[in-house]
């Protein structure tokens, strides 16, 4: 079965600083990868998804970007964080032909 690693678990960053969150997957190959954000009291917002190396689709315009340099690595970045970037970021994975998505443990980002 697959394992999803997300780090760091928590992060406090000043406004205007850069961001890099990493997600790696074990136990599967050619996964579909997703970044979701969960703001306080709100549901899950899909930010990016990727169906292959170097293939990134953005669901909402924003201050963030994503990259997939390797098959099982998905990175969420920002050059300059905004206060509104605070939230709980979740990486998820599923496979073509499979159904449910599996989630990492998340990163709590607080921009101060």
């Amino acid at each position, binding site marked *: 079965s697959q394992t999803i690693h997300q780090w760091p678990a928590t992060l406090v960053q000043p406004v205007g600083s850069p961001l890099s969150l990493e997600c790696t997957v074990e136990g599967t190959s050619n996964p579909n990868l997703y970044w979701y954000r969960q703001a306080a009291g709100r549901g899950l917002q899909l930010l990016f998804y990727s169906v292959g190396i170097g293939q990134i689709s953005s669901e909402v315009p924003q201050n963030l970007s994503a990259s997939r340099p390797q098959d099982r690595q998905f990175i969420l970045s920002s050059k300059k964080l905004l206060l509104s970037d605070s939230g709980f970021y979740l990486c998820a994975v599923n496979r073509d032909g499979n159904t*449910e998505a599996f989630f990492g443990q998340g990163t709590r980002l607080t921009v101060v």
Partner: protein
Amino acid sequence: AQSVTQLDSQVPVFEEAPVELRCNYSSSVSVYLFWYVQYPNQGLQLLLKYLSGSTLVKGINGFEAEFNKSQTSFHLRKPSVHISDTAEYFCAVKSGGSYIPTFGRGTSLIVHP
């Protein structure tokens, strides 16, 4: 396009009482349906899923859900809740032709002693 509506943002209930968390979906094609649970500061964990076959689906922790195609619903139920069931619950739908599951906004289940 697919969408999910969770009708209740918060459901308070006493321990050992039954509970139902409501979920309605819309999709123009056949769907797969899911319920996830999220404990504080953790990722989402799959509770149960409907793919095909029997419309009554049993999951972990004593939860079950019933797929009702005519009402486009997939409500989650548990006959007797515990304090430990306090968590956020998300309903999700994935159409057969889509990579991406769509999530509802979540329902916070609060179990009181």
